[in-house]
């Protein structure tokens, strides 16, 4: 972001804060200091710096509310360490969320930059296709590794039924390293807008929903434009999803499934994904107050699969179906100290990913986190390709 844009932003925040004072609402946020070290690369600092997040929120009567959060992130590891570099070289400023809520008797609306997460499973959610991922910014905070989108969302309530309608005018892709020379993204025009519908309800202790999403695959389809030039293209998809969760005592049972209709419905193009079904079944178990366990099985099945066609893709043919598992454990080690590990293991490739962290609530509003991101697997597997991106991190966060 250029500095001639930063000044108006700071001015806007100042005005917001002033207005906030007028309405006696809430100015909050946090300051945190962080350090991420790559243990595979002679302990190179990948990230080291500090962040200020300012949040402004409030209500305007009973019918409206607003919220805005802005990050001022300084990463010394990304600044140019040179006598000629400006002192703000590692500074980035970006909105996390900024939206307005409108409440009516039977409907709520949210307009603006926001997160909209769908699905009942943990970590792997086939129906969750609205907010892209930032795979280069995995941390303990969801707002780091998910990217907010500009959207209009309406929730309509009819007794036990909730209908959610979402419109997303601009496409935002996943942030990830791609082996391409160029990327083709959908133009910002109304005809390329994405939208989704979700119908949610419950019967007894069973929550369930049906959903539909029309948009773009957030990962690019890699194509060849003559050797060795590669380019990526974000192609339309339609996703038909369903999910459920129910509880029985200390147990919760959940499932989530989505059918992805791609641009290659008959499976004739080796470069484009065929239609596929991704499903997750899982269970949560709370044996004691101090431990919670989650186990999930993930299944991916490709339709119209012809191995001869798939092998024409120089990237290699993926199998018709894959199985993987995702687990999560949270343990209160002692009062105010908790440990959490999230792991994903792919059975076909034998590769895995683990995010683990230890949290200590040092005082009211003060938290210390130590963690690690660990990738493992054969060099051509999804997690094996990033095996040298392991990270060990520490964060101190003071909320106000």
């Amino acid at each position, binding site marked *: 972001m250029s500095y001639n844009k930063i000044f108006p932003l700071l001015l806007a925040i100042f005005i917001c804060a002033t207005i906030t004072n007028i309405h006696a609402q*809430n100015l*909050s946020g*946090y300051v945190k200091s962080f350090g991420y070290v790559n243990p595979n690369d002679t302990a190179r600092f990948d990230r080291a710096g500090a962040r200020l997040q300012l949040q402004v*929120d*409030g*209500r305007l009567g009973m019918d409206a*509310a607003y*919220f805005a959060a802005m990050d001022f992130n300084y990463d010394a590891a990304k600044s140019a360490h040179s006598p000629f570099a400006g002192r703000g070289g590692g500074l980035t400023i970006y909105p996390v969320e900024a939206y307005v*809520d409108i*409440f009516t008797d039977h409907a*709520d609306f949210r307009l603006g930059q926001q*997160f*909209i*997460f769908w699905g*009942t499973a943990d970590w792997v959610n086939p129906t969750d296709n609205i907010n892209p991922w930032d795979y280069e910014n995995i941390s303990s*905070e*969801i*707002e780091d590794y998910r990217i907010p989108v500009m959207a209009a969302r309406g*929730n309509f*309530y009819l007794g036990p039924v*909730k209908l959610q309608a979402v419109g997303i005018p601009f496409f935002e892709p996943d942030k990830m390293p791609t082996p391409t020379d160029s990327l083709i993204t959908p133009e910002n025009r109304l005809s390329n807008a994405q939208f989704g519908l979700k119908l949610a309800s419950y019967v*007894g*202790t069973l*929550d369930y929903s049906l959903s539909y999403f029309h948009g773009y695959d957030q990962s690019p389809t890699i194509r060849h434009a003559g050797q060795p030039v590669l380019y990526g293209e974000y192609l339309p998809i339609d996703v038909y999803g369903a999910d459920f*969760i*129910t*509880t*029985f*005592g*200390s*147990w*919760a049972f959940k499932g989530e499934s989505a059918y992805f209709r791609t641009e290659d419905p008959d499976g004739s193009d080796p470069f484009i994904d065929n239609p596929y079904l991704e499903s997750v079944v899982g269970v*949560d*178990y*709370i*044996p*004691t*107050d101090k431990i919670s366990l989650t186990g999930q099985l993930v299944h991916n099945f490709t339709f119209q699969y012809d191995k001869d066609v798939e092998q024409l893709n120089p990237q290699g043919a993926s199998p018709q179906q894959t199985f993987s598992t995702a687990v999560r454990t949270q343990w*209160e080690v002692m*009062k*105010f100290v908790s440990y959490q590990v999230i792991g994903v293991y792919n059975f076909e490739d034998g590769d895995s990913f683990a995010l683990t962290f230890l949290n200590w*609530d040092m*005082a*009211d*509003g*003060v*938290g210390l986190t130590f963690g690690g991101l660990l990738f493992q697997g054969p060099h051509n597997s999804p997690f094996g390709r990033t095996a040298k991106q392991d990270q060990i991190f520490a964060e101190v*966060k003071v*909320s*106000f």
Partner: protein
Amino acid sequence: MRYLSYASSVFIMLLITSLGFARAPTGYDIMERMLNQSTWDDMQATVTLTLKTSRGETRVRTIDFYSKESQDGDTRMLMRFTDPADVEGTGFLMIEHDNGEDERYLYLPALRRVKRIAASGSGGNFMSSDFTYYDIGSPELEDWNYTRQADTTFAGQKTFVIECLPKTDQIREDTGYGKIIRFILQDKLNNVKSVYFDESLQRKKVLDVKEYTEVNGVDFESNMVMHDVQIDHTSIMEFDDIQTDTGIPEDFFSQRYLQRMR
């Protein structure tokens, strides 16, 4: 003739009532009268929860608390953390069904979604404190067998002592308690102290009610100190700004309002 019949009925009722007071009240009688004191349909308050460890660490949480007894006998509770800042916005909704599985929903602002969660029974700790969900909920009179023990005095006042034993293994397992001894003031029927024993009948926790606030003519436990003697951990729960019968609608206790935090 009709008037005579009516007068006879009134007389018989008065006789029964006077006989009821005349005989020494049983443990069941005392508990029934104590539990039936509250007269409100809904309540809201600001709760300050202070947690103290044996290492001397202290954490203070502030919670907006709403509860309602619904017409179908369900108890609904909605809580929102307002302080400290790192947990502000966290919401919890619990619906205790008279018959059937209780429902619990958690809203974590960081995850931006409401999630139905499993429960480790009503014996699970409330917000990491020494109070369990059973402790803060409405006890079911018929779940326990009551034995009145020798009266005592508490702060100079005559006090009933009631031993409560779970009627079934399921209740013992759900609540986590094998026995509760309750100390109840004889004049106002205030439960001023309770001693909780775990499933193996080891002394687990001691509750001291430090302060009562009169709400709708009934004393409400507005300052409670729960000490876990096994891990030497203490939680203090204080209720302020108590309001009753403000007409909180039943649909307030829903996922919709749980996530409408701001």
